[in-house]
């Protein structure tokens, strides 16, 4: 077998730990009040050309409000970490329309699809058109890339990717274990410029609690140079300090704290509300028709001032109450 020693995929960011350290050295560690609107957070912390990552798992505990705002503010030439990104990625793809280019480079582990719900026509258009540069990875490879960044290392070894075209089209390299002399895939550290994570509770400084599975967000929060938190609820610092082992993300990772009730909608938020399968289906359906899709985006994203208005348009409190009943297993239905 002729194993390539190096994937030929593009490496979008610098894996140098010393470069990242120089950034982290200047990052504020102070417990200052970071509460602001999503609009301000995106204006201040998401720059054209940035490498962006999204927390949660595609339709679960995602920061929908930040994704919408990025589209609304017409950010340009973003790079993106596509590790099981489904509805979040689908939203961002709405910025690649009519010659405009919100996304220009994508690290791809799971994109285009919304799991069992099917593929997103718009995401497919974006990813097949050639307008976006792609590098291939697996979900865990992306998680390991973030872990390398968290550890302040330029790379980490792993046993995934090996022997496949996923490796060949990635930016990974082969290394040999100095002890066992076996082969491993080395993946470069990924330090995103900015990430958005939705959490259950945060204090005004950005000390956050996540209930349920944490997916890759413990690491994503620490690996990201800038971090926007949207939270279901603001709680006091006193409450955080009363149960320090309940904290998932410490304030020194965080740049902005935005209180966004129902902020994962139409995604699932554990213990709060289930995903709105009806609305997600509307997205998938409307994307098939270019004109209807433009009208849809105008209605739900460009034509509204904030995420709260979007939730209102989708049925508001009443709809959320239905999804809450579903989440709490008070009603069993097909999600409609």
């Amino acid at each position: 077998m002729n194993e390539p020693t190096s994937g030929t995929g593009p490496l979008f960011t610098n894996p140098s730990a010393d470069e990242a350290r120089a950034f982290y050295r200047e990052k504020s560690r102070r417990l200052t009040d970071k509460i602001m609107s999503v609009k301000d957070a995106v204006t201040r912390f998401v720059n054209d050309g940035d490498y962006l990552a999204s927390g949660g798992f595609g339709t679960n505990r995602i920061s929908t409000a930040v994704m919408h705002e990025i589209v609304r503010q017409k950010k340009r030439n973003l790079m993106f970490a596509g590790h099981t990104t489904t509805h979040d990625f689908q939203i961002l793809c709405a910025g690649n329309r009519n010659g405009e280019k919100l996304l220009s480079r994508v690290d791809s582990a799971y994109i285009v699809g919304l799991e069992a719900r099917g593929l997103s026509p718009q995401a497919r258009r974006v990813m097949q058109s050639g307008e976006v540069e792609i590098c291939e990875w697996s979900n865990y490879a992306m998680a390991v890339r973030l872990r390398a960044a968290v550890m302040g290392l330029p790379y980490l070894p792993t046993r995934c990717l090996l022997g496949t075209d996923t490796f060949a089209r990635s930016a990974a390299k082969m290394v040999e274990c100095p002890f066992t002399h076996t082969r491993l895939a080395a993946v470069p550290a990924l330090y995103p410029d900015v990430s958005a994570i939705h959490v259950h509770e945060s204090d005004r400084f950005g000390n956050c609690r996540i209930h349920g599975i944490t997916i890759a967000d413990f690491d994503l929060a620490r690996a990201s140079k800038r971090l926007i938190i949207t939270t279901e609820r603001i709680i006091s610092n006193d409450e955080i300090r009363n149960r320090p082992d309940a904290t998932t993300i410490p304030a020194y990772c965080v740049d902005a704290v935005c209180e966004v009730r129902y902020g994962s909608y139409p995604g699932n938020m554990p213990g709060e509300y289930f995903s709105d399968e009806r609305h997600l289906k509307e997205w998938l359906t409307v994307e098939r028709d270019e004109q209807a899709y433009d009208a849809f985006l105008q209605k739900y994203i460009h034509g509204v001032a904030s995420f709260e208005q979007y939730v209102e348009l989708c049925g508001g409190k009443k709809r959320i109450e239905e999804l809450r009943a579903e989440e709490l297993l008070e009603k069993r239905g097909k999600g409609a």
Partner: protein
Amino acid sequence: MKEYNAMELMICVASRLLEDGSTVGVGTGAPCAAAMLAQKTHAPDLFILFEAGGLAPQLPMMPISVGDSRTFHRAIMATSMGDIMEACQRGMVDYTFLGGAQIDAYGNLNSTVVGPYEKPSVRFPGSGGANDFASFCWRTMVITNHDAKRFVEKVDFLTTPGYLTGPGAREEAGLPRDSGPYRVITDLGVMGFNTETKRMQVESIHPGVTFEMIQRNTGFEIRKAEHIGETDVPSEMELRILREEVDPLGYVINR
């Protein structure tokens, strides 16, 4: 004879392959239905893991997403993707179920692109956790429909490793020793892999199907296993539990 559809048969067959007390990394859909059915029949101690962090949940219903709240409902732990994948890489996970747009004779899977990579005719979601699960778990199983477009001589893109180019190739690439594809369950039969050649072979044929039908719907040469049988049809109990308890709304079995 009991009435059942192809999906029901595939789920029942898959379910029987899961031993009690074993660990299985599953996604949504048929694999999850198979695991739930196993728990409600012969394998109450089957230990289910979901990629996003759900560890041994008591599933109240079929999850919609690998990361939704159902996947860690009354779990023994709600953890991280890293913790799950590390358990797999460490060798703690026995089985996984995968799918794909294409599969070849060595069980390699494609879920990235059909057509040339630079100008694909279809872009699929990509590996997701499939490459990881198939690299790390001891035995990979595939549930898929059987047709010659899907069962191909060479996958357009090797997303997820089977036996790669054949005997010894996984180990040479650095993949864990003794791991690899185990069963491919289709609407026509159950395939395994020859211990010597690592090529796919037919282990059992579903009722009403012939070996010739399987060969005709397979884009590469496929042989028979030494002992080949007819697939056991779903029992009434299996069907009842599958329809009434596992998937009462027909998410999977009536798709």
